[in-house]
């Protein structure tokens, strides 16, 4: 577009006033309605402006960064590197410049060490027929130290809700490259204690590529469903990128503090075990809300390879879990439905290599899956499904569970409020691999046998109706449940069941 210099300057003057709120409110659009409206207006103004002048050739001569006193210049430069490179390319326009600078602001914000950045653009005139832009990104660093304390609610069901208190100290931007060191300590009833030190750093100044290492020690009580406590001491190192995360974990597990009535299964697995594993997780969440989804879908997968080959440790297996959920509204009625399906498999592998190789061993209670509970398979107690010995739920190696919910808005309250009446039916099976003894038995035929067992008869199932409230930090459910089908010994929950949690299936 041919436009006179004065027009260009005029555009830039107007941009200067408008760009800032755009970037700011992008973060807060969800939180503040007013800001959202403001943002919309600003965006429209800007859009019109940019549409009119979008093809104005431009180059960014320099970017001034203000207020990043604890952040390394080399780190900041790396973030802006791409923008400068692009701005030198022919055909770089004002629109491109805006997009690039906004992306830089988003990048800075994503590091989690700054308040929402401000962006100002000015023109220093024209050069070779291009508008010469000067940008200023004003950053304000978050405080380097944050101390948080609080209490958490944990667990539900009739086993008595637990509680915990925590303390967390964060040292942000440790070496001026958005590294953070976090110390966390928590003491509670079920999660008796957790101590963790965690270090995170972006790789190559990329906020979407994070290196994470941590060391932890925790004691968790599993007394309410299998008469023991588990002490963990371990460390992990991983890389997060987008929806993926992968890494290595080495952890020493100790099953201890057995209850007087602990079953021989738990006694048999008591003591020390070391797991050394590589893992990968993937999550893609396209739901409108994870606490009360009314539309969209979600897929999650977790895979772990422990003890195989030269990995070491004393347990070896491949463990995989998959979970999906879909939700959809029924017309404009405010009524919505959701359905979920998930499953898992623990496949024993041989440990060691060469002469030290040992044949696949059957799984330990530390590694097996547990199934059932108010946030999991409703109408059953926590870990109430699957193989049991006396009072202990000993877990299983293969599981499958699924459920469907229909949500009705409450009369007079309407669909806008996160409050629903729900009706649900859900089911699950959790089975153990059979016929594997110490270093003997065919794993494949055991697994095939377990899959056959999954479809042997109807799955254990329950149905019910209840009330759901999706508070911003957790979802609350109060349901009236009736177990429909179960295996002898599985612990159904007939009548009222309260569920509190973040991850509902």
């Amino acid at each position, binding site marked *: 577009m041919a436009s006179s210099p004065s027009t260009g300057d005029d555009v830039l003057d107007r941009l200067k006033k408008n760009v800032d709120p755009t970037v700011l409110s992008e973060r807060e659009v969800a939180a503040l309605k007013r800001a959202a409206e403001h943002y919309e207006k600003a965006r429209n103004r800007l859009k019109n402006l940019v549409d009119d002048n979008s093809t104005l050739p431009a180059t960014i001569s320099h970017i001034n960064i203000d207020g990043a006193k604890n952040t390394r210049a080399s780190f900041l430069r790396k973030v802006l590197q791409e923008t400068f490179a692009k701005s030198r390319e022919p055909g770089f326009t004002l629109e491109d410049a805006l997009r690039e600078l906004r992306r830089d602001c988003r990048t800075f914000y994503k590091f989690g060490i700054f308040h929402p950045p401000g962006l100002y653009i000015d023109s220093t005139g024209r050069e070779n027929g291009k508008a010469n832009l000067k940008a200023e990104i004003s950053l304000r660093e978050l405080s380097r130290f944050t101390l948080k304390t609080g209490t958490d609610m944990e667990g539900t069901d009739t086993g008595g809700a637990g509680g915990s208190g925590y303390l967390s100290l964060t040292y942000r931007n440790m070496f001026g490259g958005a590294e953070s060191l976090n110390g966390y300590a928590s003491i509670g009833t079920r999660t008796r204690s957790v101590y963790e030190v965690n270090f995170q750093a972006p790789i190559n100044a990329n906020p979407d590529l994070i290196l994470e290492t941590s060391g932890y020690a925790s004691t968790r009580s599993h007394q309410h469903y299998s008469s023991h406590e588990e002490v963990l001491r371990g460390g992990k190192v991983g890389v997060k990128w987008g929806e993926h995360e992968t890494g290595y974990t*080495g952890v*020493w597990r*100790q*099953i*201890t503090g*057995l209850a*007087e009535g*602990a*079953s*021989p*299964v738990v*006694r*048999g*697995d*008591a*003591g*020390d075990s*070391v797991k*050394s594993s590589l893992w990968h997780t993937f999550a893609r969440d396209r739901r409108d809300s994870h606490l009360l989804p009314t539309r969209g879908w979600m897929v999650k997968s977790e895979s772990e390879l422990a003890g195989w080959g030269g990995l*070491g*440790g*004393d347990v070896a297996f491949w463990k995989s879990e998959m979970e999906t959920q879909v939700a959809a509204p029924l017309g404009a009625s405010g009524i919505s439905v959701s359905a979920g399906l998930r499953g898992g498999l623990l496949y024993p592998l041989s440990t060691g290599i060469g002469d030290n190789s040992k044949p696949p*061993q*059957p*799984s*330990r209670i530390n590694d*097996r899956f547990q199934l059932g509970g108010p946030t999991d398979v409703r109408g059953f107690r926590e870990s109430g499904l*699957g*193989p*049991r*010995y*006396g009072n202990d739920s*000993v*877990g*299983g*190696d293969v599981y499958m569970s699924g459920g469907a919910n229909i949500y009705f808005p409450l009369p007079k309250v309407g669909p806008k409020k996160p409050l629903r009446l729900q009706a649900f039916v859900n089911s699950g099976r*959790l*089975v*153990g*691999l*059979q*016929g*594997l*003894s110490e270093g003997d*038995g065919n794993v494949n035929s*055991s697994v095939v046998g377990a899959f056959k067992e999954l479809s042997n*008869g*109807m799955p254990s199932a329950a149905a019910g109706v209840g009330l759901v409230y999706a508070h911003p930090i957790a979802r609350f459910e109060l349901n009236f449940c*009736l*177990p*429909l*089908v*179960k*295996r*002898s*010994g*599985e612990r*159904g929950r*007939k009548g009222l069941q309260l569920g509190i949690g973040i991850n509902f299936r």
Partner: protein
Amino acid sequence: MVSLPIPQFLKSLFDSFPLRTYPANPLPSRCPKFGTTPSLYAFATPEDAVAGNPSFNPSCLKWQAYLKFYGVEFKTVPSNNHASPTGALPFIISQQKSMSESMEVEVVPSDKLASWIEEHGCSLDVIDTDSAQVKAFLVLVNNQLRDAWLYALYLEPNNSQDLAGKLYCGSSVSAVSSFLLRQAKAAARQQVLQAYPGGVLDPRRIYADAGAALEAISTMLGKDTWFFGGGDPGLFDASVFAYTHLILNLRWHTGENTLFRAVMEHDNLLGHERRIRDAFFPEANTPDANKPLGSES
């Protein structure tokens, strides 16, 4: 919980749920299957447990021997202290009915083992362990001898590394092993310090006390076959055997084998150990075939 009166028809409707109950899920493979043979959970290597060989832990070996004296059939299950209802091995899990009939098991902790074994075994010609004399000698075994054993095994530097570390703190990961060994050494030290307060342990004194205890025990045995003139070996014989057998059989390091030499001085104790070993643990290692590193001959 508030309980409301429920109308009868609702109650019977309620009771009809679940509509269908299938048989119970079978247990995963690793879960122990119990026959009617009682299981003694003890420190033992998997090979020794299968072969019925002696445990490497004196407390466990004592009860293994006592079970054998009474002719109680049992199998040894390798285990660790975390598994025990009292926090210490050994203990017995016994099941009266087969697994298919009932999952109910009886767990017998170590302090109830004596009466449980006497109840389930044949009748023996043994002396009453409640007598003051027996009690006095048991104190010698359980204190002086035990403290010296703990010192020799955990606090002598080479022994602790090669014996205690391998037997009690084995893990596939050396960092875990050394952490466990450090814990075990601290616990042993704590234990021995109870008898020798003051913060500094003098091995000469500990070994001298153990030597004196062995001397007294040897004198007590005299030329008898079993202690206190019993017709059959009893609990005291089991207690002494548990130490003498292990002291004679462990591969102590040169210079850290004082306890071994102290036992070797008493021919009648060596004979006592051999008699029990031959009669009840025929497969066990013999001291001669397994010379400790420090023995001179």
